[in-house]
């Protein structure tokens, strides 16, 4: 276990290096640069800015300097929002994305797992069909459609919830709903699939045979294994839900990190993009590691070597 953890942690370093290198050179391939605007920046000012940020140096030098600084977790200031440092921007806005994603994931689990269990237990009944149709609809509606629809209904017609902004608990409702719907649906389907497989197994038959209550069979014995597909999905899902909230953050004007990645790319804000990409990559790899560890805890048959 310890060697496994150590090896996986060490593997993160070269992976990050590859991602950093690819991102660095891909960003530089995009036409234009950070100091370009519809109203021309005077040549002297532009040259001064490029000198200030070291953009006048040879690309290889810039790359090595970037690697050296990145190793010390210093990405320099954002070109667009100077003097704000990239690390400051991440520190300010990531907790917001994390909170939004966290609630959305909790909500998705709280609704999706019971829905899947019920559907599996009542397989091929109306309950099952209804639950799975709802799940299919949830997977199919993109959040940029669902978000505005919710705003229209609940904010602009009934005036019960704010249409946007991130202030107070009531402002969390619509973004969390919008972000989690697709995950509710997916988790319900995964749970149903996992449970169906487990419920057919011999040890469940044994459990039933020795007279255990159905609730105990389902929740104590079956769910523990039936939920494994959900657990393995949780790693990428958590990463996607936290990072993939870009559209939701924009619709609801939420000051999270996702938006910075998109506008950073548009603005050729090299430092900001590199910082955010590496941060997300690290976040994703750590989550995946966490899932692998969680696996051994849920399913003792899995051994980490």
């Amino acid at each position, binding site marked *: 276990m310890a060697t496994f953890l150590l090896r996986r942690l060490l593997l993160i370093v070269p992976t990050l290096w590859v991602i950093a290198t690819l991102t660095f050179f891909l960003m530089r391939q995009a036409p234009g640069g950070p100091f370009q605007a519809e*109203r021309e920046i005077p*040549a002297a000012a532009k040259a001064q800015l490029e000198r200030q940020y070291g953009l006048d140096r040879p690309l290889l030098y810039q790359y090595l300097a970037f690697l050296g600084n990145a190793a010390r977790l210093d990405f320099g200031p954002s070109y667009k929002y100077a003097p704000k440092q990239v690390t400051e921007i991440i520190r300010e806005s990531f907790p917001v994305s994390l909170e939004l994603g966290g609630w959305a994931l909790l909500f998705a689990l709280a609704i999706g797992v019971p829905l899947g269990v019920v559907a599996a237990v009542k397989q091929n009944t109306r309950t099952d069909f209804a639950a799975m149709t709802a799940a299919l609809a949830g997977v199919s509606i993109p959040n*940029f459609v669902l978000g505005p629809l919710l705003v229209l209904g609940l904010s602009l*017609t009934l005036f019960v919830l*704010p249409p946007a902004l*991130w202030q107070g608990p009531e402002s969390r409702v619509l973004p969390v709903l919008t972000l989690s719907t697709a995950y509710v649906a997916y988790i319900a389907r995964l749970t149903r699939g996992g449970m169906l497989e487990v419920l057919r197994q011999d040890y469940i038959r044994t459990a039933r045979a020795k007279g255990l209550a159905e609730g105990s069979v389902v929740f104590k014995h079956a769910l523990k294994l039936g939920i494994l597909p959900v657990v393995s999905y949780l790693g990428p899902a958590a990463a996607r839900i936290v990072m993939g909230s870009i559209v939701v953050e924009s619709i609801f*004007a939420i000051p999270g990190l996702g938006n910075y990645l998109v506008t950073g790319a*548009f603005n050729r804000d090299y430092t900001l993009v590199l910082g955010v990409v590496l941060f997300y990559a690290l976040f994703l790899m750590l989550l995946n590691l966490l899932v692998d560890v969680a696996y051994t805890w849920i399913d003792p048959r899995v051994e980490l070597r």
Partner: protein
Amino acid sequence: MEGGRRCAGSLLYCALVNHSLRAALATALVLAGCTPSTPPGARPAGTGPRYFGDITPPADNVFRFANGAEPERLDPSVMSGQPDGRVARMVFEGLTVPDPKTLASLPGQAYRWETSADGRTYTFHLRPGLEWSDETPLTSRDFLWTWLRVLRPATASRYASFLYPVRNAENYNLGELADSSLVGLAAPDDSTFVVTLEQPTSYFLFLTQFYTCLPVPRHVVERWGDRWTEREHLVGNGPFRMTYHRRRDRFEFGRNPRYWDAGSVKLDRVIAYSIDDLNTCTNLYKAGVTDWNPSGYIPSQFIPYLRGFDDYRTGRYQAVYFYSINTTRPPFDNVWVRRALNYAVDREAITRDLLKGSRDPWGNFPPSGYPGYRHPPPISYDPERARECLARAGYPSGKGFPKTEILFNTSEDHRRIAEAIQEMWKRELGIQVGLSNQEWGSYLQATTALQYDVARRSWIGDYLDPTTFLSIMRTGDGNNRTGWSDPTYDRLLRAADAEVDPARRMLMLAEAEARVLDAGVLIPIYHYSTVELVKPYVRGLYPTALDVHPLTRVWIDRDWNRHPAPVAQLPDRVRR
């Protein structure tokens, strides 16, 4: 000023989702709140005023508005862009301030000024007892220091050229002159600031209102370096001071008790929300979360429907939407080709059918509304003449015309106009042009590097004078972006700069405009309008030609529906 940042919100979405789908959906969404059965824009007969959404005034004297994208810089000396400027004008005040309606210069930090007979020297007298918000005295040396800081090459100010009318300012800014004492700025005593200009510059008092010329506190800048604009360090001299700032969320402002005219400030608090997405801006206005949705923050497809509401306001805006032609690429190096393309564009059809009358067709380069300026005759739609020009260029009925492209930055509005023009050129001239859309950064690079045939562009005036438009077409100007160069044009602009007589100066400028129109390098399409939503209880906020809105005297009228709008009071501040 740049015109593109206003659409940053919709630009973001283009990359993420199918824009037209979203646009159609969003239209349906906001419209569902109105009565769908009435024809767009019409007010049902016999009904009273209609307002878009909630019209309950806020409980206290707070004014809330959408401020667009998160400002990039909060240091007035280096900022560019409208959201940044709106914040700066609340926290800082210049020598002069714009009249809330006409934008004419009113006394600000200077209570009076004199101009020398040759129009080259301005002497400003500061009000006695001025203070920064941290109670440090503010003197003319603060202005001197700030303006030199703007010009110092190391500052890399994007709008440093605003101060180029000042003697030696350009040389100093370009690093060709090292001695700042040779720049035409002086502070002979604490309350006097003397500016010596290269040329009589009739619009100089407009420049002193601009955010680049706002004073910054030397003692704070030197203490905190470029971190001085952080909320906890920021010190200003304007009507408000910043009390809260969270990136991509909001700014909050309170009164500045040290402001010389603090008694006239009626608002206790101002909240400026940083919101990228235009639909979100409009939703917040409808829900009554904001009191003002400034111009540029309403999705264009809503405009025809919002027109019937009483809180919808529109006015002429000093900005023009045009196509520019890259004259360095054949066949566009041929003036007859460019003229043919110009005459074949039916701008009336575009504004009437495509934009549903939300913009005015425009066949001139500078927009309307410059005092004393008479435009040369506009370019008009004349398909017959267009065909003649094309034949003269050697492509009768479009035969043999090479394959070319219209470039625009990704946006549904730009695409629709490009498609219309593509169709017009095909119909009238028999030529085939392709369409090419690029995301913002690539589009900028392509236009700057002259890697395009015909490109969609727009330009926004910075001050009320035609030179804010005409100067960009000078040879080699960074914003020319057409490769066009005309020595006569350059000479006319230089002569106008030196001219003291305003009438003669305007004639020279009109002649210059006629030349650029005749050369056909630009295809003017429409004149922008300001389009904003303002709750009926907001008083003292007016549409202006530069979309600049001093908030000093804005107030919340809780009895708004019991009496008509009060007659606007002219600011009763000390006159000269």
